[in-house]
């Protein structure tokens, strides 16, 4: 018997809870031929900005124990080119499209981006990437964050997602201009993730995505240089999973809106950890690089797990941690 895998994120209905994470799935067409894209719950684009961004100099990645560091720097062609050249692919695909957006300098850009996306019928939801650790060297994140929270840069930390007030203010501004499902993506580089999640919920986000990468650094001791050209980057992969599961669990206990959980999911078991901790949907990131068909196999794996435990609906697993 078929089990119900379908979940709701805001107004969006996903046929299953398996999503592919921003920045790890390109614009989906790269993965054509490796899996059946139609099987996915939703696809999140690489983060887009108002203007094209060339990104950081190489080396941009470095492998670490059970993970990797990246400092891509949000390289993307800008929203206009995306809409012109990539969007039609999704129209034909029929899988909910989530557009991830960010701004380099000015929170007003988030608003402008959201306004433009609001008019695009192909787009199911907007994900606010307020947690990318890789855009500081180019445009000081602190300036952006300062504008968002209305104080001097010195008083602010670097990412919007590191400050509850800044998060609240930004989500609220964007909420005003779009009726599309709004997902706010949080950073694990914080003392208490639930403060930020609560702020985003209060400001009207429909869902929380967590986590983005954990800030990290790796050194080549022979050369006595950082492995990444820009010194620090974002850690992803199985190495961050226990931390990410813990953050989902903590957040789940405090908020009412759905959580899209991610961080080091590489198979069905690790996806289930997030669901049981409280995630309504899960997002596959780095694992797409290792096995481009993994997301589809996780969908099948979840189905099998529900059958095995005679669970009718995936919802009854969400936050079903036995205490």
């Amino acid at each position, binding site marked *: 018997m078929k089990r119900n895998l379908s979940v709701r994120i805001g107004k969006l209905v996903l046929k299953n809870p398996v999503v592919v994470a921003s920045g790890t799935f390109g614009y989906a067409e*790269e993965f054509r031929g490796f899996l059946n894209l139609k099987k996915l719950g939703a696809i999140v684009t690489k983060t887009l900005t108002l203007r094209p961004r*060339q990104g950081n100099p190489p080396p*941009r990645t470095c492998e670490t124990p059970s993970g990797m560091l990246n400092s*891509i720097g949000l390289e993307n062609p800008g929203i206009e080119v995306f809409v012109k050249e990539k969007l039609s692919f999704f129209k034909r695909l029929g899988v909910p499209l989530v557009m991830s957006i960010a701004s380099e300098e000015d929170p007003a850009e988030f608003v402008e981006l959201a306004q433009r996306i609001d008019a695009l019928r192909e787009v199911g939801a907007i994900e606010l990437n307020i947690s990318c650790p890789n855009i500081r060297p180019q445009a000081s994140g602190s300036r952006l964050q300062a504008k968002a929270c209305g104080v001097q840069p010195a008083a602010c930390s670097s990412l919007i997602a590191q400050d509850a007030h800044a998060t609240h203010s930004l989500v609220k501004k964007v909420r005003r201009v779009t009726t599309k499902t709004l997902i706010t993506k949080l950073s694990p580089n914080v003392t208490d993730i639930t403060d930020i999640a609560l702020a985003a919920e209060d400001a009207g986000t429909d869902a929380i995505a967590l986590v983005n990468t954990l800030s990290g650094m790796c050194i080549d001791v022979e*050369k006595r240089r950082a492995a990444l050209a820009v010194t620090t980057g974002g850690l992803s992969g199985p190495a961050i999973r226990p931390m990410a599961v813990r953050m989902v669990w903590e957040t789940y206990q405090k908020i009412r809106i759905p959580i899209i959980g991610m961080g080091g999911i590489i198979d069905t078991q690790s996806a289930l950890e997030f669901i049981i901790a409280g995630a309504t949907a899960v997002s596959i990131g*780095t694992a797409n*690089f290792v096995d481009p068909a993994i997301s589809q196999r996780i969908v099948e794996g979840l189905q099998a797990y529900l059958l095995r435990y005679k669970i009718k609906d995936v919802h009854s697993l969400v936050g079903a941690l036995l205490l």
Partner: protein
Amino acid sequence: MARQLNAKILENARIKGSYFRSVLLSRQIASHSRPGQFLNIKVSSGTHPLLRRPLSIHGVDKKKGEIRILYEVVGRGSEILSQQKSGGVLDIIGPLGHGFDLRNLYPVTRNPILVAGGMGVAPLFFLAETLGQGPRKRHALHARVLIGGRTKEQILCENEFKSCGCRVEIATDDGSRGFKGKVTELLERMLRPPNPVSRIPSPESRIPIYACGPRPMLREISRLASVYHISAQLSLEEHMSCGIGACLGCVVKTRTGYQRVCKEGPVFNAEEIVWEKSFRKGGP
């Protein structure tokens, strides 16, 4: 179109020192591969290492459906690969990337020059083999191959190149084989006009160069190509994660901005590349 599949390992053996050659069975990949393309190989079933390892396609046998790779053990990933037994299977993705462009080569009257530094012989041998067969028999080209290495221990495939009709010249830094010096010095001697005053380019200068090797070597070839007005195609490396163009990790700076080594590359025209100070070079 690249595929992900399990390929049977027909052979995996040390050829000398820390160099290994494997033969894998995949009719699909063998029949679609072109010189300069690569495979992205999952070497471990666990998460350390987590990412795949890119290795050039060293040659194919389309009839038998075989693919060859040639690699050096330099770290954990290649170490694990070297321990795989024949009879086992490897999870591979390929053929990936944009290989050498051979379109402008035919019809030609002279044979192209291949310059390999160390492991650079891996993709260039596939190229030499392909040129040796030609699109048609009468168009077979026998490349002139220059191979460089620190010592004779780093010189690979000399006989293989010879057996497909190539003329091989060798350069070693320590002079333990062939010319003592850089392989690019050998190349420059070949390109330099016989009479420097006349400024008439040597006949070699109309011949395309294909090269693969360490960055400094490729950079020097790029310089020579511009001085002598020759076209050169370079196969570049950069740290790679996905190998299919999604992560934007393996970029190199070009005149038109960053381009992906795994997608637009690994082969680029020399004049496209913007050479910058290598972040990996240098030391304390």
